[in-house]
């Protein structure tokens, strides 16, 4: 048994008349990384605690509903302090930064955002102990029919 190389797969795709999109593991674009570092002040970010909810298929990038839930209690001395949203392909990497006090009771926020293209969205939560937690989601943005010309 042999393992198919990337070249074999490409060749097979070409033979079938199929356009294959072979995407290398995409590094987080620089601007988004810089924006995230500005938010975390360079502190490490762990994955977990955060649940970023987005529709996998978006009908119009002008309005994409997004909800972030952070699974952490909201005690005066130990709570979620901030939740920030970032994107990698809009003209600007920042979307919103929400600031919470323990009086929010629950770390759940929703809003609607614009996405210029299919892309990755990152949500990062900052806890009062200074740790950062994150989740990310890939969103496919479809184009509407008969857009205004």
């Amino acid at each position, binding site marked *: 048994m042999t393992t198919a190389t990337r070249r074999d797969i490409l060749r097979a795709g070409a033979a079938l008349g199929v356009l294959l999109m072979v995407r290398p593991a995409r590094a987080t674009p620089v601007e988004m990384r810089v924006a995230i570092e500005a938010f975390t002040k360079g502190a490490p970010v762990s994955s977990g605690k955060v*649940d*970023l*909810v*987005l*529709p*996998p*298929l978006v*009908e*119009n990038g*002008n*309005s994409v*509903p997004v909800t972030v839930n952070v699974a952490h209690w909201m005690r005066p001395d130990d709570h979620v302090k901030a939740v920030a949203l970032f994107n990698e392909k809009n003209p600007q990497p920042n979307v919103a930064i929400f600031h919470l006090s323990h009086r929010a009771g629950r770390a759940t926020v929703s809003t609607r955002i614009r996405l210029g293209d299919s892309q990755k969205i990152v949500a990062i939560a900052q806890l009062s102990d200074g740790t950062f937690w994150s*989740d*990310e*989601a890939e969103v496919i943005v*479809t*184009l*509407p*029919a*008969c*857009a*205004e*010309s």
Partner: protein
Amino acid sequence: MTVRRSSLAAAVILLAGTALASDTDRRSGFDFMGPQTQAMQADDTANPGMLSVLDGEDLWNTPAGAANRSCADCHGDAATSMRGVATRYPSYDEKAKAPITLDQRILQCRADRQEAPPLAWESPDLLALSAYVAHQSRGLPVETGADPQLTPFIDQGRELFTQRQGQLDFSCADCHDANWGKRLGGAVIPQAHPTGYPIYRLEWQAMGSLQRRLRNCMAGVRAEPYGFGSPEHTELELFLMTRARGLPLETPGVRP
């Protein structure tokens, strides 16, 4: 990340399924939207179209024009006087000897009764008044076209709906009768029942009328769009509303 697999599955089913819209299978564009867009319309505190409805309520109660008269001065409480009115538009106007749209009726009232300068087509104020009046009929079935005087105009509207036009040589019926439920690019083709107008369209990031939407469709097939307030628009709207009879009004609808 929570992936909503059900909506993805629904999209795939829509790709596969298609049929002609029979009288018994008429569906609002609402049914073809994703669950998130449906939720946006269904919750009045989340529906951006409600901002326009509230603007319309203020305008309804504000005196305007040389007559210094508000809509409410004649019509009273819109919740009572305007209930069901939008379900019958476009309706036959004795003076014009032709059908007129709800927007045209509002403009007529404004000119004749308020003696106020006309509101521009697609202006926020005209859309707001129209949305407020139509909202009073939300949930009531469309009844347009019952008046026999409208028959020749409905026929004319049907003619426009089935007539091929533009550089792409498509009729409205080619998409909305023969291919509803299929996808045009990423978007599902609805049956073209204008039950939510004026709508908040995500594409516009604003409210807009059916005429604005029809102009988008016509530009889509590379045809010369009809002008705002033109008889063609009124006839097309009359035909579409007659065709949508029985479906509930949804104003303010949300569409992609």
